């Protein structure tokens, strides 16, 4: 009997979680030091998906580096493209026409919904709920089909281009998107019925991975991670780009900064994204979709095939790249994960001298030890889900 009275002693155990592990959402490796069920130390190892995108970008023209941005966060490539082209346009000093801006805002919000849907599905699946995952992918499929209709690609879209978008949108596309937009709030209600007040869900997420507002800012967190702690920082409001200053939307913020608040924030963001898309469709102005800046934008393809001058022009722009003023520009945009920034240093040639990608997933992965240490091993899974990282973007 006396043996039972004594506290149970455990040896410290070190386990390697990942890089091949279904709950790490890609190739994230965590080395966990455990004392029984408690995590005493957590060390993330990233870089398994490092492809040298920054180095590649420095050796390509501004036009041909665009598809690289697709491969950053491959489940919301539309948003990365929008971020990339906005930064390049700022460097070039050109502006996209109004219609292109609205289209870009619209497709970026579609990308946001599709990314958040994946986050929702996988996050709840990790914690043990299978049903929302299946429903979530049903809605994502609609968006993927719409992307395919728009530009022929489902994942790596490269639809926004420097100076505008690749092609105009059709009425059929708008009709189908509007149908989706009207329908989507009821789908959101379905997810929320399944998850929000679910006892198991709340037990696993309320009070887990708490981070205060000051600390979150100091860590450099952005997106849902920061807003879950109650800071309303959103690039779309603080430094509006595209058509975000012309549409109305709210910024959902949390209070406590735990996994549950971040869940509520992202659910709110999906509803807001839906609202933005609806406004974009209703307010969509007529006009061209490509800026009239022949020195910096590729000529239309039909003219290239007919006309010698345009062919030469296209040839020069593709091989040499545009002539850009010397200087440097940083531009941040709000992607589903947080603030995606591009920093370009131009040396006056057609290729960026330095292309830096400020990836939100990278910053969010760095906060994992802070969230996991001192918690239970089961909460590590909840924390990986809540930081919402994509390793393609984290490792670049």
């Amino acid at each position, binding site marked *: 009997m006396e043996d039972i009275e004594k506290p149970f002693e455990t040896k410290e155990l070190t386990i390697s979680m990942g890089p091949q592990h279904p709950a790490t959402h890609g190739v994230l490796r965590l080395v966990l030091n455990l004392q029984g069920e408690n995590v005493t130390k957590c060390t993330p190892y990233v870089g398994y998906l490092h492809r040298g995108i920054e*180095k590649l970008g420095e050796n390509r023209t501004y036009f041909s580096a665009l598809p690289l941005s697709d491969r950053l966060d491959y489940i919301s490539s539309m948003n990365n493209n929008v971020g990339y082209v906005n930064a390049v346009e700022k460097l070039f000093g050109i502006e996209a026409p109004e219609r292109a801006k609205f289209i870009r805002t619209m497709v970026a919000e579609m990308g946001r919904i599709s990314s958040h849907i994946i986050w929702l599905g996988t996050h709840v699946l990790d914690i043990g709920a299978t049903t929302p995952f299946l429903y979530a992918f049903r809605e994502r499929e609609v968006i993927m089909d719409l992307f395919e209709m728009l530009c022929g690609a489902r994942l790596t879209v490269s639809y926004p281009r420097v100076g505008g978008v690749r092609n105009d949108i059709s009425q059929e596309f708008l009709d189908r998107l509007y149908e989706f937009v009207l329908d989507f709030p009821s789908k959101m209600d379905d997810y929320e019925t399944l998850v929000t007040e679910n006892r198991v869900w709340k037990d696993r997420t309320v009070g887990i991975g708490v981070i205060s507002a000051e600390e979150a*800012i*100091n*860590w*450099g*967190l952005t997106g849902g991670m920061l807003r879950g702690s109650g800071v309303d920082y959103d690039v779309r409001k*603080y430094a509006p780009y595209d058509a975000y200053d012309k549409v109305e939307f709210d910024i959902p913020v949390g209070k406590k900064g735990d996994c549950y608040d971040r869940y509520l924030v992202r659910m709110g963001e999906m509803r807001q994204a839906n609202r933005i898309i609806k406004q974009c469709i209703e307010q969509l102005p007529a006009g061209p979709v490509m800026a009239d800046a022949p020195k910096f934008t590729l000529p239309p393809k039909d003219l290239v095939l007919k006309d010698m001058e345009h062919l030469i022009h296209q040839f020069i722009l593709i091989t040499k790249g545009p002539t850009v003023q010397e200087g440097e520009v940083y531009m941040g945009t709000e992607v589903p994960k947080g603030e995606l*920034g591009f920093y370009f240093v131009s040396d006056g040639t057609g290729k960026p001298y330095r292309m830096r990608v400020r990836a939100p997933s990278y*910053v969010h992965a760095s906060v994992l030890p802070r969230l996991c240490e001192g918690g239970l091993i089961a909460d590590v899974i909840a924390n990986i889900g809540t930081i919402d990282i994509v390793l393609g973007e984290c490792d670049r």
Partner: protein
Amino acid sequence: MEPVNITEKVKEIFPEEVLDVREFRGQVSVTLRKNRIRDISRFLHDDPDLYFDYLVDVCGVDYLGRKEKRFEVVYHLYSIKHRHAIRLKAEVSADDPSLDSVTPVWIGANWHEREVFDLYGIKFNGHPDLRRILMPEDWEGYPLRKDYPLKGPAKEWRGFEDVLERSKRFRDYEWHG
């Protein structure tokens, strides 16, 4: 606060440190000596009028053969409270590629500085955990330097040879089920 006023304030307090101020497309970059970068960061973070609480990004740039000092470490700062931004650039020479870490000011600088160390070989004094992060720990060379070959070093990385060797072995593996 307007970027011009911010730079003036920095100049006033650290007159020796500011080398150059440039504006391009409405964004102001301040080039600094590297020696007192942590003091400057601390000042920018703590001053109530400036209050740069959010370190957006830290990255390196290699100006091989273009500038006297080969490297620059670039800090992008933003104040969520006052909604203003500034870019700091610390010059680092090739002979002594090291400067003070700003992790005591912004803890989020940790991984960014590790990345600069990994890809440029610039050391950060006082960093809590300066290891390679994106490249394998036994990698030789610093890939984002301009003199690093684009297609990688001529000799394959040792770890990759191991993988090839092992895959060859597994290909001959016979399954006795």
